[in-house]
């Protein structure tokens, strides 16, 4: 069934001069969709033409509507010669296809030319009339919503999370077609832009079909990537999580009962019903079956360790028949170097072999490095393992847990890949986290039989996903969350990588749950997550994994935020060596000593102190070779790189006195003669995990005194550093008296001290505070120059300057009072390494490390005016465009936070809660407002507090919820108030909101942006009276601090190519790229504004491919960005928008009384 697309061209402005003689332009516009083209009249001799065209109507299939971009070309009319193109605008009309999206797209779009950049602007209006298609065999999937946001978008609630969707589309790259030899660069670039736009439209449509098939209506965590494979084609692939989302209506939010009795929850705890309504054949859902497969855990364990031992001698001697053998690595949640082994080298090997020993049986290829016996876990075995694990591990409520696991498992059996691209989950969704699982595979692109068909690539990815899945199982987990995929291509070699976090999820939540956007939780004023489930007549399995203490009415572990740290695997049959201790919060369950994950810190996580960005950087040289030899060389290097990155991460983590990593992202980039590894993560101190041990340095056995002196100096430096870092990050874990708890952990401080003084060669260090040494210390051997360098590099990481924090997660644990002052930025650097071959590997490492450090330093300097602030979602991208060039691109957002508030809040909630708050720090007359999601909501409440509210305030749009214990509920939840500074402020904002109601696209500056809002008072009246530009915020985060997202307007997915043949004239490479990035931002902003939005959330620059040829004075750059267009209101505005604040919502006044002092 067709739809009708209507386009109107209104006007142009700031057009370039196309006719030198008159200094004017005779502009007209061509509007093209599919194969139909319309033209406007020529508007002669003007740089600001007013076409005011009729509505051009295109009658098209909805399939085309999804695939095709609307193409608007502005041309200069020439009577005698060919008309000159001024530039183009591509408009993705997909956001208009959803029924709840914007009805019209209207606004000024920059006219873009791939050679000249932005040349003026054009005002366009686009509408779509869509007829519903109920044909079962339709090929279109209009109406399926796509979100880049890797969490349930605010203002929606998830009815069901269906699971993983993926798709891949291949086409010939126009740049490599024969026709490219004869066409102009402009034509070639435009062909490419158009093709990619078409392909991503097609991809989205196909994924949409899959979602509809699954019964969903949306994709969250949608991640689309381009692989420019060169000769073999152009691949567009995407992954995401299919969901059924419900738009939250105000009534639904506000009418939820504020609280439900815990007894109700408990009543429902017995898991009566099968979580999965569809029965699946997979057996092991019954305990019986498990028992048949039971085996001795100790045996399995020894098998694994024996494999490690015997592999010591095994190095890849033969070239593998399949150089593209899969590489699988498991990042265990515990450090590999757990003993003070004197054989440093051998530990390395041991470790890497241990990593390999987990190669799963499904792998069709034999990897060259894995020519050894592998521990073959088969699925049954694993199932048993996990079943037994819970049986033996859970001393209390063990059987329940076992059964629960099996049920969970069955819920997942039917999924081919139980993966979730989400990184943030509603409370209670995540039950346990196992650790990071990752898989890599090296492929040769010139070996693809049918380059134009997607089959081969599909098979590649399927293989990798299979590996990931089996790794998850090895960790006793049935699902992988925070899942992502990436590639790195150099010539014909391609590394495919996938990684995620093995986890145990709450199956109930998956099937049909009442998962809501977290802010809604907050708004419905529920003390903790499980009340949500209960009032919908459902229960949470979550409770079951708590120990029986919770059932007995003791402190509930869920509210302590430790359950996700508890190991999901069997402690007697651990997939890797790890130290387990009893959880430091609940003291009942076992936890690993270190936890690595790719997800955001869960809301309920109890974090001590603040987090920080931790990076491991590595550069390895390789010989320049071709084909299989090259692939083999890379395959051989990969495990060592992974291992070294892991060691670096672990060292740096310990150096900061932390014990967990979130948002871990390991990028391995392949170049002609180098491999680069960059691992970024946010380190935090999880209260539930044991305090990390210090780092010990051990020297060579025969040593002279000066050497020992040197060692002890270094040791002292390291210890000082750890202490300093603990101060910086405010890590003061509450001392737990072990006697009190009667902990069975067979550790004592005495012992660790003893150990230390033995291993340390000098006395002055033994006086150090050993509070971080509750367990055996982490030992670094200095047996060669390499190790010395390692330690040096450890110490040379410059600390972040005062007033700055940085993390690569969305929010910084421990900081909770963001202001609305934010600055998103992209920084790109290209370095030339001179004489790569002459550099030692450590020289190379150091160069790369310095590069990253310097880049960070520059960022801190640039953003110094925002102090105190935090760089969030710091995302590094490394590329090796040429032999000796390293390109690093960073995108992040700097958010200012309120320092004074930070301190008082930090003290208030260090040990328990993690609360995101945004406060306006105005100390005069204050009144607090409490609002529900929608402004019309009747539940909004106001109360006045004559004095300063000292409690914690929370801004509405933030997704974090306080997993507060129930007794604390009244305090925490009553303080979701935001403050207006004064009545005058209030009235002013109200006035603004009223004005805003009129026209969306032409909003004057002072209304739309929080940034400008702040400045409104002291701006000069002259300058902005005429402005029609909407301020659009861009942020890589899924939320906007101090504001409420009210509407999602559609996904933004844009691809641009820019080329120049006058590089010097445009200010060299820097000038060229600076202008291009600014142009890309401008085009994104214009599209968002045209949709009626004022922000892009979950913004990401997925690709930035830069190529230059200075000799020819040429350069080319490709940029791919995406994000979600949204409309947000500043909290203050929303407050004033609710018209009857005083009359309503007095019901929460009592609760607030606790806060108001």
């Amino acid at each position, binding site marked *: 069934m067709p739809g009708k697309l209507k386009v109107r061209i209104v006007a142009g*402005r*700031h057009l370039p001069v196309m006719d030198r003689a008159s200094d004017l332009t005779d502009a007209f516009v061509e509007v093209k969709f599919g194969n139909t083209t319309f033209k406007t009249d020529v508007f002669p001799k003007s740089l600001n033409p007013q076409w005011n065209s009729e509505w051009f109507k295109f009658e098209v299939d909805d399939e085309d509507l999804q695939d095709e971009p609307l193409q608007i070309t502005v041309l200069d009319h020439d009577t005698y010669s060919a008309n000159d193109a001024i530039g183009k605008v591509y408009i993705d009309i997909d956001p208009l296809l959803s029924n709840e999206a914007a009805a019209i797209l209207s606004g*000024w779009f*920059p006219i873009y030319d791939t050679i000249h950049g*932005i040349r003026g*602007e054009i005002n366009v209006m686009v509408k779509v009339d869509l007829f519903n298609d109920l044909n079962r065999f339709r090929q279109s999937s209009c109406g399926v919503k796509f979100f880049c946001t890797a969490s349930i978008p605010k203002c929606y609630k998830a009815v069901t999370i269906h699971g993983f969707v993926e798709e891949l589309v291949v086409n010939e790259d126009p740049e490599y077609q024969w026709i490219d030899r004869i066409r102009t660069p402009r034509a070639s670039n435009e062909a490419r832009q158009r093709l990619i736009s078409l392909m991503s439209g097609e991809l989205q449509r196909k994924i949409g079909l899959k979602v509809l098939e699954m019964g969903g209506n949306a994709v969250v965590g949608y991640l689309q990537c381009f692989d420019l494979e060169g000769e073999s084609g152009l691949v567009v692939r995407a992954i995401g999580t299919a969901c059924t989302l419900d738009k939250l209506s105000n009534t639904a939010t506000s009418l939820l009962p504020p609280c439900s009795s815990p007894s109700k929850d408990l009543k429902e705890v017995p898991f009566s019903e099968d979580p999965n309504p569809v029965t699946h054949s997979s057996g092991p859902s019954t305990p019986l079956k498990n028992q048949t497969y039971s085996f001795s855990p100790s045996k399995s364990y020894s098998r694994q360790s024996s494999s490690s031992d015997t592999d010591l001698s095994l190095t890849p001697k033969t070239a593998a028949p399949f150089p593209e053998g899969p590489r699988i690595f498991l990042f265990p949640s515990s450090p590999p170097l757990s003993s003070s082994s004197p054989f440093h080298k051998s530990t390395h090997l041991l470790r890497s072999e241990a990593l390999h020993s987990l190669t799963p049986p499904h792998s069709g290829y034999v990897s060259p490095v894995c020519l050894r016996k592998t521990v073959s876990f088969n699925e049954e075995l694993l199932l048993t393992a996990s079943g037994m694990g819970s049986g033996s591990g859970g001393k209390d409520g063990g059987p329940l847990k076992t059964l629960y696991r099996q049920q969970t498992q069955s819920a997942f059996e039917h999924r081919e890949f139980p993966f979730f691209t989400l990184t943030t989950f509603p409370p209670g969704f995540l039950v346990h986290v196992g650790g990071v699982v990752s898989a890599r595979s090296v492929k040769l692109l010139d070996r693809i039989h049918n380059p134009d068909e997607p089959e081969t690539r599909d098979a590649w990815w399927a293989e990798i996903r299979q590996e990931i899945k089996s790794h998850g199982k090895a960790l006793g987990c049935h699902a992988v969350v925070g899942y992502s995929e990436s590639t790195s291509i150099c010539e014909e070699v391609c590394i495919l990588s996938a990684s995620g976090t093995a986890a145990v999820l709450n199956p109930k939540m998956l099937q049909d749950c009442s998962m809501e956007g977290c802010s809604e939780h907050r708004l419905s004023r529920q003390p903790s997550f499980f009340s949500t489930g209960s009032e919908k007549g459902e229960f949470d399995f979550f409770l079951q994994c708590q120990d029986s203490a919770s059932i007995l009415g003791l402190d509930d572990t869920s509210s302590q935020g430790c359950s996700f740290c508890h190991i999901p695997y069997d402690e007697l049959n651990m997939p890797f060596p790890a130290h387990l201790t009893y959880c430091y919060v609940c003291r009942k369950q076992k936890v690993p000593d270190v936890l690595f994950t790719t997800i955001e810190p869960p809301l309920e996580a109890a974090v001590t102190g603040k987090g920080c960005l931790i990076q491991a950087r590595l550069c390895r040289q390789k010989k320049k070779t071709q084909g299989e030899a090259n692939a083999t060389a890379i395959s051989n290097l990969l495990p060592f790189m992974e291992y070294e990155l892991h060691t670096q991460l672990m060292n740096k983590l310990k150096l900061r006195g932390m014990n967990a990593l979130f948002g871990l992202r390991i990028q391995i980039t392949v170049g002609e003669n180098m491999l680069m590894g960059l691992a970024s993560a946010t380190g935090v101190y999880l209260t539930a995990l044991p305090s990390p041990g210090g780092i010990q340095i051990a020297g060579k056995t025969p040593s002279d005194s000066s050497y020992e002196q040197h060692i002890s100096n270094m040791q002292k430096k390291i210890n000082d550093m750890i202490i300093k870092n603990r101060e910086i990050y405010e890590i003061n874990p509450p001392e737990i008296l072990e006697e009190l708890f009667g902990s069975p952990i067979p550790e004592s401080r005495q012992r660790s001290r003893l150990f230390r003084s033995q291993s340390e060669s000098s006395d002055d260090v033994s006086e150090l505070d050993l509070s971080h040494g509750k367990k055996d210390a982490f030992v670094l051997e200095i047996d060669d120059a390499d190790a010395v360098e390692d330690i040096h590099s450890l110490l040379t990481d410059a600390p972040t*300057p005062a007033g700055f924090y940085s993390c690569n997660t969305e929010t910084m644990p421990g900081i909770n009072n963001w202001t609305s002052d934010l*600055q*998103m*930025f*992209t*920084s*790109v*650097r*290209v*370095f*030339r390494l*001179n004489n790569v071959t002459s550099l030692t590997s450590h020289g190379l490492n150091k*160069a790369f490390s*310095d590069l990253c450090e*310097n880049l960070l*330093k*520059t960022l801190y*300097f*640039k*953003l*110094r*005016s925002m102090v105190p602030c935090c760089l969030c979602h710091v995302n590094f991208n490394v590329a090796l465009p040429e032999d000796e060039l390293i390109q690093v691109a960073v995108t992040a957002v700097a958010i200012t936070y309120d320092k004074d508030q930070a301190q008082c809040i930090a003290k208030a909630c260090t040990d328990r809660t993690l609360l995101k708050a945004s406060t306006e720090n105005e100390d005069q007359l204050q009144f607090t407002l409490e609002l529900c999601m929608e402004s019309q909501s009747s539940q909004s409440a106001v109360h006045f507090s004559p004095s300063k509210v000292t409690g914690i305030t929370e801004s509405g749009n933030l997704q974090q919820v306080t997993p507060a214990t129930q007794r604390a509920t009244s305090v925490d939840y009553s303080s979701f108030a935001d403050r207006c500074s004064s009545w005058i402020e209030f009235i002013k904002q109200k006035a603004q909101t009223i004005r805003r109601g009129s026209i969306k696209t032409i909003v004057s*500056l*002072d209304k739309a942006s929080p*940034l400008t809002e702040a*400045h409104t008072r*002291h*701006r*000069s009246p*002259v*300058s*902005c009276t*005429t*402005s*029609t*530009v909407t*301020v*659009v*915020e*861009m942020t890589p985060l899924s939320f906007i601090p101090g504001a409420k997202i009210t509407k999602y307007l559609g996904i933004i997915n844009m691809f641009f190519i820019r080329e120049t043949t006058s590089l010097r004239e445009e*200010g060299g*490479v*820097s*000038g060229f*790229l*600076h*202008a291009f*990035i*600014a*142009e890309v931002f*401008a085009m994104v*902003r*214009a599209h968002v504004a045209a949709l009626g939005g004022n922000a892009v959330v979950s913004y990401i620059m997925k690709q930035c491919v*830069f190529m230059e040829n200075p000799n020819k004075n040429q350069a080319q750059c490709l940029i791919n960005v995406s994000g979600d267009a949204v409309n947000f209101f500043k909290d203050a505005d929303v407050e004033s928008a609710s018209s009857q604040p005083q009359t309503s919502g007095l019901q929460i006044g009592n609760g607030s009384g606790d806060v108001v002092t």
Partner: protein
Amino acid sequence: MAVELDVFVGNTTLIDKDVYQLWLDGYSVSDAVSIRIQSGILEQSGATPDVLESDTMDHYRAFQMLERLLHSPPKLINQLLFQIPPPMQSMLIEKYYTFDEPFVREVLGKKLSKGTKKDLDDVSAKTGITLKSCRRQFDNFKRVFKVVEEMKGPLVGNIQQNFLLSDRLAGDYAAVVFFANNRFETGKKKLQYLTFEDFASCAEQLIQNWTLGAVDSMVDDMDVDLDREFLQDLKDLKVLITDKDLLDQHKSLVCTALRGKVSTFSEMEANFKTPVSMGAIHGNHQKLHYEDVPRVTVPEAS
């Protein structure tokens, strides 16, 4: 290891006012870096010189891209390329169009031609302002002059509308345009002691009271050209210069008229001079020589 490319682009364009001033003052990147180092910024921020250089480069690049837009400020307000908060936009415009006192004293009243532009290196040498900065200021004069030259309506208003300047700066530009159009010689030795401010307020009075615009509000060049009738009348005033007696008589008459009405009467009386002493009027090239007009106009204004 060499940095080949180094860019930083913010969604909201970051602008450092100090660096902007250095750029406006015409310093090269390396000069600007050393000036910034001297300012002690490294100690404050703990940064290294290369960080500072990278930052300065970024800013300079951004300013270069902005300069095109600054040439027509309304464009800057409506452009989509750089997202700049309105107060920052006004600051950029205001500072870009701000000129240096020593410079304007050199150029005021001169024809804004290519010839004058060629002589800017002399001006630069004399005033100590970099040539680059001199050129920017000269081009600003010329640009404003060209835009408002043929416009109807009040001069200050036109300048404000087309260049979005503050009242004060728009007034100053009006003076510059007025002087350039009428080619009043301000470089004479006798006038050296006068500041630009003096001339500006003089121009303001002239525009208000003695131009075409003062007579008829809807003519071309209303604020730029002097009223012809007034010029005729002015010729008659010549006698005041030639005849001392008449001058004294004029003085006593004025003083009598103002006595009691003006608070600063005695001061004014002491300083009384001919408001406008005409040298010569040669056809279209009116040349006015005046002395201390401001001092007389102060009481008039009050």
